[in-house]
């Protein structure tokens, strides 16, 4: 145990939180006055007629998506939002990148101080998960996915997670209990943490999709757009949000499946059975079944769209429940994680 390294790690995490708060402010400014506002103005230019026709257009786009067409064939969808990245948005992304670097430094120094992989208790899981969420988002941005609009909606939950980690969950760096001393810790927990990052990005997109879908349906029904309209106007159209959410979950689901299988192999080594309906296993299974239902729902008439979105959020809730509630309140083999 190296106390000064552990101290250094804490300082990295605190600095990361400070920088991330600034990033969040930058994203909020961008959302309200920068690219978000530009998107809203673009929506206004297209006029309320287009906004009204969005559900139809989105529906057409979705039909085409099944037969495979990008929007170019559809005149309404052809006015796809330009990938605007405002100055404040770029500032936010830079600050988020810095946060990511600080968190990685925090995780590495924590690992060095304890002389092991730094994911042995809930504090460490939470910091790792926060790092993973930011990492996944930055990775997708780097891959050219137009997900800048998520900035505010990613930095906020990550900041809350880090806040909970340093206040409620903090534990001193220490040795692992024997049950965790296995190379499967590296495989199983890493996969679960990365999956947590991807699930979180997917859930954030899904919430935004449901907001836009809600406003679209009000407009289509001839009612006032409602209080969510200013938010919806600053976001991409429902069809592309839905598609992005799907792509994200379609990446997360095999990853989660792998995490569960790796966990089962480890359980077979440690506890003598690969599946025993321990509460953690049960909730991992429930999460898995919900996301399986989500993927099926998207291929089922009457379930795609909004309802599939709700199923995905149910799955994400089960995932969060498994992470927080099962560790803290439930009796089981995973209770050694330490709060």
């Amino acid at each position, binding site marked *: *145990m190296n106390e000064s390294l552990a101290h250094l790690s804490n300082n990295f995490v605190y600095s990361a939180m400070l920088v991330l708060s600034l990033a969040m402010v930058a994203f909020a400014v961008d959302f309200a006055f920068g690219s978000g506002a530009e998107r809203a103005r673009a929506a206004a230019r297209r006029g309320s007629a287009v906004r009204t026709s969005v559900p139809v257009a989105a529906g057409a786009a979705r039909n085409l*998506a*099944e*037969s*495979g*067409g*990008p929007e*170019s*064939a559809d005149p309404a969808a052809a006015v796809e939002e330009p990938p605007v990245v405002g100055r404040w948005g770029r500032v936010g992304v830079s600050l988020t990148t810095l946060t990511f670097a600080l968190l990685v430094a925090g995780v590495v120094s924590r690992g060095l101080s304890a002389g092991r992989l730094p994911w042995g208790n809930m504090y460490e899981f939470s910091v790792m998960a926060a790092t993973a969420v930011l990492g996944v988002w930055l990775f997708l941005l780097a891959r050219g996915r137009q997900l800048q609009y998520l900035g505010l909606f990613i930095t906020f939950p990550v900041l809350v997670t880090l806040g909970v980690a340093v206040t409620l969950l903090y*534990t*001193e760096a*220490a*040795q692992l209990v*024997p*049950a965790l*001393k*296995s190379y*499967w810790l590296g495989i199983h927990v890493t996969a679960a943490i990365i999956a947590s990052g991807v699930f979180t990005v997917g859930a954030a997109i899904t919430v935004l999709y449901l907001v836009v879908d809600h406003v679209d349906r009000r407009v289509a029904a001839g009612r006032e757009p409602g209080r969510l309209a200013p938010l919806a106007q600053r976001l991409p159209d429902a069809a592309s949000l839905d*598609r992005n959410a*799907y*792509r994200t979950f*379609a*990446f997360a*689901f*095999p990853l989660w*499946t*792998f995490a569960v*299988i790796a966990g*089962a*192999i*480890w359980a*077979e*080594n*440690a*506890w*003598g*059975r*690969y*599946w*025993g*309906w321990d*509460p953690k296993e*049960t*909730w991992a*299974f*429930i999460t898995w*079944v*919900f996301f*399986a*239902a989500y*993927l*099926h*729902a998207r291929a*089922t008439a*009457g*379930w795609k769209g909004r309802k599939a979105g709700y199923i995905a959020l149910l799955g994400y809730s*089960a995932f969060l429940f498994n992470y927080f509630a*099962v560790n803290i309140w439930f*009796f*089981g083999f995973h209770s050694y994680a330490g709060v």
Partner: protein
Amino acid sequence: MAFDVVDRPAEAAGATPPQLGVGGTLRFLWRLLTSMRTALILLFLLALAAVPGSVFPQRGVAPLRVRDYYLAHPGAAPVMDRVGLFDVYASPWFAAIYLLLLISLAGCVLPRAVKQWRTIRALPPVAPRNLSRMPEHRTLGSDRPASDVVAAAATELRQRRFRVLVADDGLSVAAEKGYLREIGNLLFHLALLVLLVGVAVGSLFGYKGTVVVVEGEGFANTPTQYDDLTLGRSFRAADLPPFSFTLDTFTAKFVESGPKAGQPAGFDAYVTYQKEPGATPQQADIRVNYPLLIDGTKVYLLSHGYAPTFTVRDGDGNVVFSGSVPFLPQDANFTSRGVVKAPDAQPDQLGFDAIFLPTAVIDPQLGPISGSPEPKDPRVFLGAYAGDLGLDSGTPQSIYLLTTDQMKRIGRHSLGVGQTWHLPGGRGSISFDGYRRFANFQISSDPGRQVAFWGAVLALVGLIGSLTIRRRRVWVRATTGEAGRTLVEVAALSRTEGGDLTGDVEPLVAALAGPDDSQPEEQS
């Protein structure tokens, strides 16, 4: 299978409901069961049905906690037990959901597999007349003859691993790619069935038991030696592999200082084992995460504890008990409880209710309690009873509990190592000679493990395939336009959601345009 029944509607004509007929009803039910909507609902039910198993204690996971629940909720517990809430994953309703889901899955996937078997060998459909209605459509001009352009397109597409069909007139080409997507999807679902076969094989032909072994003592793999043994339904006790082992020493290390002092740091059970009677003895170190594999059976270290050693003499001075008794740990510092029974003692049988503390501390509220998991100041606290232990009644007794209905408490005393307590009334004495450690082993064999493992791996491979491979079609048609210039049309259609076709079309257009040609003019 259900279609066999459907094919014989005449037999059941008498019971025919007005419109549908039995055959029709069955057909309707089968369609209903195998529809995606039903599968979705069943998936929901499966998720919901799994919840109570994590909320209420389960026999398979924590039988003692089920007993505690019974004590805490004497009214509700028997009712809950009847509906299977303490055995959720073995309950009929849980089984009903997953069996229906399995039938639904098989009914959906198997016909699709047959269909896929046909389509996988089918050639891509010829280019539709109006290519401009496809979601991706480009036109470009070329100076090469139409048939050359089409031939070049076919070559290019073949190189890109498309399945290619050139039309008879040589003026159009159809290509398709991504057949593996559906294969992946089918593989995933079929592999889930394989996984379940593995689970079933394990529960039919496997066995699982636990045994407590004190240092210096041994274990032979026969049913009588187990503390608890569950055999799979098709496993005979005679088939237990004839290995044996002795626990030579057990070491436990704990974190010595810092905030996590007392937290376990490492356990080792050093054993000597024999594959069968007469075989060469071999040494092994069994640790958590590192089970010992003997003949397909795995020996796991589950937990450990202390077994204090006692010598009991009766009123006549005869030794009526001598040995180490495993005590059950009650907390992380190994405050341990256990009993000593001396049925041969005269004039009355003797029984002792005892607490063993590796590091004795007297807490003002909690009484005697251990301050550390390590044996820094080991002591026992004894309550002595004389009378009838009740062992002759025939009902099996727990080795960790004393039945004191027909016994009288004759005193309490605490002892350090090497000390002796002379019982009041000349009833004898008990000496605390020291302690040994014991290890609790799980011994289990699961012949379905490998099948389940490969089922899971195949499911993952299939899943990745079905979510990443895109199925798409590409068509190229060349016509000779005015002034002898060739007009080339390139169109593409993605047959899976969210497909981006530019990656397929752009390089093809670039290749067909060739270096000397004019820039492709984009349309639509």
